[in-house]
């Protein structure tokens, strides 16, 4: 059977939900006629019509606001930000209003904000950022980032069915670099459940997004040196699967926290907080964070490669921690 890419998996997921539920609609810049900057919404205009596939003016705050209003009034918007970086333009609407509706007045906001994020595409400071943390930090939002085509489809479907606002971060580098056969049967992937991608006994790497693949490659390399590495893919950043995080930490007693996002204020700290508080007795070594350095995302290849955590970086730290 044919393999489905990550980008196509997301497209299928949205498509299926639009077939299933006519309150679901997509909205954003260039999503209708053009089919979206990354072609996620391609063909939807023709199938679902311009009431449900809506090109907007260039106005992120307006788009998020409109989505939120539509969600209040009974629809299930799936909004596209052309790049995750520009979600910053709708930051107030997302964090100050949408996130708080349920708490303030019991109003559900069943809205998905999709945003192509991440680097390794020579996108530079404005088209490569990992923007999860401000949203992870905002109570009321859920945050998801799939690392595989299977999860991408299952999670976008779950996100659309979810009754809370979900920030759905798609990794641009994974769009076309990962693919797999998908089930013919319908399925969803539950929000809030991490997945063990590789079992291991010496060291755990906890990661998400593209870095899961880096972790798996590093684990493979480490295996050749006799180090058994477990890889946990968080998949959902809010709510975090604390159980899975603590389970793997307790199992291996040595943990590497890996993300593509910059170090300071990144999710690695949150994970360190959880583990160092709740699995302290189990730890046999420092919690090692591997992340991009605290700089804007550089453009040029030599710099971007140095910026992004690499398989070698991970193997080196794994080796070090193993010896600890």
């Amino acid at each position: 059977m044919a393999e489905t890419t990550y980008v196509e998996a997301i497209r299928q997921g949205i498509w299926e939900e639009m077939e299933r539920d006519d309150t679901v609609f997509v909205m954003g810049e260039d999503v209708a006629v053009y089919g979206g900057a990354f072609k996620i919404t391609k063909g939807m205009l023709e199938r679902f019509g311009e009431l449900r596939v809506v090109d907007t003016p260039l106005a992120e705050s307006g788009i998020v606001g409109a989505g939120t209003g539509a969600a209040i009034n009974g629809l299930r918007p799936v909004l596209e930000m052309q790049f995750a970086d520009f979600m910053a333009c709708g930051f107030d609407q997302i964090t100050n209003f949408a996130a708080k509706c349920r708490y303030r007045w019991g109003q559900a906001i069943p809205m998905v904000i999709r945003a192509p994020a991440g680097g390794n595409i020579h996108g530079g400071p404005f088209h490569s950022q990992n923007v999860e943390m401000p949203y992870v930090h905002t109570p009321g939002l859920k945050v998801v980032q799939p690392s595989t085509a299977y999860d991408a489809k299952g999670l976008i479907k779950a996100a659309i069915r979810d009754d809370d606002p979900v920030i759905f971060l798609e990794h641009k580098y994974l769009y076309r670099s990962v693919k797999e056969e998908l089930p013919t049967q319908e399925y969803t992937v539950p929000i809030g459940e991490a997945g063990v991608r590789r079992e291991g006994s010496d060291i755990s790497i906890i990661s998400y997004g593209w870095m899961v693949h880096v972790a798996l490659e590093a684990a493979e390399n480490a295996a050749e040196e006799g180090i058994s590495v477990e890889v946990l893919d968080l998949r959902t950043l809010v709510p975090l699967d604390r159980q899975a995080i603590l389970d793997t930490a307790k199992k291996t007693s040595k943990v590497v926290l890996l993300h593509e996002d910059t170090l300071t204020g990144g999710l690695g700290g949150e994970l360190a907080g959880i583990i160092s508080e709740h699995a302290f007795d189990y730890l046999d070594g420092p919690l090692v964070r591997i992340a991009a350095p605290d700089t804007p995302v550089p453009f040029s290849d030599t710099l971007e490669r140095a910026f992004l955590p690499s398989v070698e970086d991970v193997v080196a730290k794994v080796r070090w921690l193993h010896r600890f």
Partner: protein
Amino acid sequence: MSTPAVAHLQTKFDRDLCERFHYYMLLMRELEDRIENKLYRQGKVVGGCYTGRGQEAIPVGSAILSRPGDWLTPSHRDMAALLIRGITPEEILAQYMGRATGLTKGRDGNMHMGCAERHCVPIISSIGASIPIAGGLAFAMRYRGESNVVFNYSGDGASSRGDWHEGLNMAAVMNLPIVYLCNNNLYAYSTPLDKQMKVADIADRVAGYGIPAEIVNGNDVLAIYEASKRAVEHARAGKGPYFIECKTFRMSGHSAHDPADYVPNQLREEWSRKDPILMLQKYMVENLGADEQDFVDMRKRVLDKISGAVEWALEQPFPDPATLEDDVYAPA
């Protein structure tokens, strides 16, 4: 500032309708007065305190036209819009006092209230943010082919925010059924209109969106009613958004703690002569056979209602701390 077009009344305003105007304007005035000048100073109200004193005609003359399926996004000076939608003084007072039975269960405070069932979006504190929200509410109406409309309320200051621009523009491009009621009360906090914008009227700003706009005397509930009627018919008929600039004045500080020294006395005096409640009463006396005693009776009715509500609210429980973490997310 150009003067509002003199209202040329086309509606036959009957006594019944005017009494409803009167009732809601008075109820808002007296309820806010009680909150600001009594309960706030007595420390019974928690947090800040914003009133729409002098601006009552705006929510009343417009919201009274709303149907159950419509949505409203009031500003912090539109308490009467909530009252008209059936939200009670009891609920409002409990909200102001931070009680568990307030509209936000004590989670939010003062005018930051609304109600999903009665289709009032609670005030969004980020000024201007309600404009795109109104767009989305209206989008859903168009999506389902309804003839409902959104009543969006905001102030002059809001019109400087990017959200205002993005929201108005999208509504125009998408032809959404929204009636914008802008209360131009000459100030945004301490900032006078000429530091807010270089043009004379907010309506001048609206022309650039292809949205019809008109200017009305914001203290004349009849004029607002008529303009709103035109606007609502326009929007219900699928002709898109409509903007009404209501020239008015904030007859109070920005909030209870603000003496508003920056407002020239002359301006305050000038506007106090244009009190919207007095204006309506004058009309009722001159055209509908009302007399002073009617107003005294009405005021008593309103004050009694408020006193009862205050008593009730003061006995309401504070929120149980055990509920602190409820409702951040949907129940699993």
